């Protein structure tokens, strides 16, 4: 094996004191996420006596107004290019803390970077708690598809995190802040290793049929009931299902009305479902129905009668006729 790999295996010989500052890496297409993250980084940096750096494509004056001391423009068009650029940049500018704006893309890059730098990354964080005395951040992040949360910390440097959107409030901008704009970061080959960007080639869109998901395993389900629905609104519900990639089902009354067949009745006398999102339109929602959708993670209920039991276990409620509400929802999609 070549020396390049052995070095990575033997571990970095840099001492932890050489790592400094908080670095925001922004690979997202809009600025709301990164600006709020910058605000938080500013707060942490002030308590640590450190600088805040912004790496990304945001307008530098905005980055500075949100808390950055230094702006390092970066614009890359592939994950490989991002990893390559960040890895070589961080080799010289040893970061103590790196915060990415989380996305599937950024999570992968953060992990690859962590591997490259012999450290760790915690992705999709929903809170970061800095302990100034130990200079350690304890991050809260969801596991088992959000069933519960772990509090984790990274014991090596740099501490790399990707932070979910909406964790921090909208950024406050201080136009009076000053900062410096550094040179743009480029992807550059590391040592003598060939650029990995040449090794993955995009082939474009392909046709792919994922295996059909049965109702009982569907991640999204929209179900209709008799109340406040008619043929037309049931048709709209089907359109919504098609649009959002949901399975279409109904309760017992929908079966009686002929809108769903026997295999698409949701409830204890029927199919039990546990989707991520469950929309019940016109379903009364008695205990037999409730038991059948117990596992649903987020329940949206639309029913004209505010006494409907479904509202007792729905996270999001609209009191109204599905035949009025559903078309409006469809228009918003």
């Amino acid at each position, binding site marked *: 094996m070549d020396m390049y790999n052995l070095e990575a295996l033997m571990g970095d010989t840099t001492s932890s004191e050489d790592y400094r500052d908080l670095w925001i890496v922004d690979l997202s297409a809009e600025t709301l996420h990164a600006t709020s993250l910058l605000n938080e980084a500013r707060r942490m940096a002030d308590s640590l006596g450190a600088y805040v750096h912004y790496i990304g494509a945001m307008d530098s004056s905005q980055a500075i107004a949100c808390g950055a001391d230094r702006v390092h423009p970066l614009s890359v068009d592939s994950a490989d290019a991002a990893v390559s650029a960040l890895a070589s940049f961080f080799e010289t500018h040893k970061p103590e803390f790196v915060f990415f704006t989380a996305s599937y893309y950024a999570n992968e890059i953060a992990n690859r970077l962590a591997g490259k730098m012999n450290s760790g990354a915690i992705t999709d964080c929903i809170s970061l708690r800095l302990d100034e005395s130990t200079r350690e951040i304890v991050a809260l992040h969801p596991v088992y598809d959000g069933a519960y949360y772990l509090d984790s910390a990274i014991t090596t440097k740099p501490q790399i995190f990707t932070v979910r959107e909406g964790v921090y409030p909208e950024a406050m901008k201080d136009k009076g802040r000053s900062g410096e704009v550094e040179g743009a970061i480029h992807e550059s080959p590391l040592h003598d290793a060939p650029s990995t960007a040449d090794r993955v080639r995009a082939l474009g869109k392909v046709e792919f049929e994922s295996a059909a998901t*049965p109702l*009982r395993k569907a991640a999204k389900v929209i179900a209709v009931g008799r109340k406040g629905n008619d043929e037309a609104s049931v048709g709209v519900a089907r359109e919504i299902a098609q649009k959002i990639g949901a399975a279409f089902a109904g309760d017992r009354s929908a079966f009686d009305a002929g809108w769903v067949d*026997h295999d698409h*009745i949701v409830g*204890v*006398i*029927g199919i039990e479902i546990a989707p991520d999102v469950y929309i019940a339109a016109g379903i009364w929602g008695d*205990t*037999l129905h409730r*038991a059948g959708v*117990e596992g649903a993670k987020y329940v949206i209920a639309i029913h004209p009668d505010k006494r409907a039991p479904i509202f007792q276990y729905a996270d999001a409620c609209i009191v109204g006729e599905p035949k009025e509400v559903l078309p409006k929802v469809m228009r918003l999609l």
Partner: protein
Amino acid sequence: MDFDLPPEYNALRKMIREFCVEEIAPIAHKIDETGIVERDLLRRLGALGFLGVPFPREYGGMGAGEIGYCIMMEEMDRVSASVATIIGAHIGIGVMSMYLDGSKSLKAKYMPDLCSGKKVCAFALTEPNAGSDAAGIQLRATLEGDSYMLDGQKMWITNGPIADVINVLAITDPALGARGGATVFAVESQWEGFSTGKPERKMGLHGSPTSLLNFDNVRVPKENVIGQIGLGFVTFMKTLDIGRVSLGAATLGGAQASLEASVRWARTRSQFGKQIAHNQSIQFMLADMAAEIESLRALVYRTAWLVDGGRPFIKEAGMCKLLGSEIASRCIDRAVQIHGALGLSRDFPMERGFRDARISEIFEGTNEIQRIVIASELMQEVGVRLRP
């Protein structure tokens, strides 16, 4: 002393349970409503070894012994008694009779296809005039040159309508009758003279096809004799003895399903402002179910262990079938009661479980016969011979 099963059995149970829950449970209701188990499902089961669990690999089986077989039957009956019955009749008494006493060449000829699910097996003993009085069978097998001509009828044969190979007991020497004058033959369903009646319409096990078998001078080559001529009754009794253990395991699975559903319902259903689990009447029913199931579980797996260890097991096997069937009946009865009106709905599994359970006290040797078997074993230990 170790009551844990070795890890391979837990791994096996995991795979079996996953298959049963993912592939069979979702269609169990449909199987009961339509009365159809697709041949493709049997093929898929065969491909994973489900249709030859206790038999050695060399014959295409799973090589998992009686313990593995009981695990499979328990998990299968837990989701669908109909499918469990098809498999149980196929393996437990069908192929088993050939496995116990068949010649090497006969086994080599049929077992691989049977274990893989390409062919289905049936065990044919019962006749219109011979149920518990198995020795009263009248199907005749007359020697004609190099083959036997089988003539007569069998009745209530599980897998009858779908079987490719039927292991049938026929009288070869009328003077001696069943004891000493009966022989087991492996008959192929496509042979001339063999036909089946329409599938019986039963209280339960709608997906398990049962029928009359007609033998109108079916020519059976003498190579297809299983075991020894004249000693067929012994072969069949041996087969029934061992078949009882896995039947006990199947009833255990059904009882287990009743308990799990009942515990869940006790938590889900609220009346008078609280979950019904808080009612002592419900608690007592659940406790009784759980205790009975626990005892059955210990009995079944210990008996399977006796079988795999080559130890005597006839008495215990009879107990497995006797207790298993009665415990399962009591459990599903309680389960229906706990579920209230829901327990009577044809769109909810309890009602199907109730209908499916009843047969266990009757087939494969009625519980009265089981009691005779157990008592015979007991008295034999003290020198009194009861069984004829």
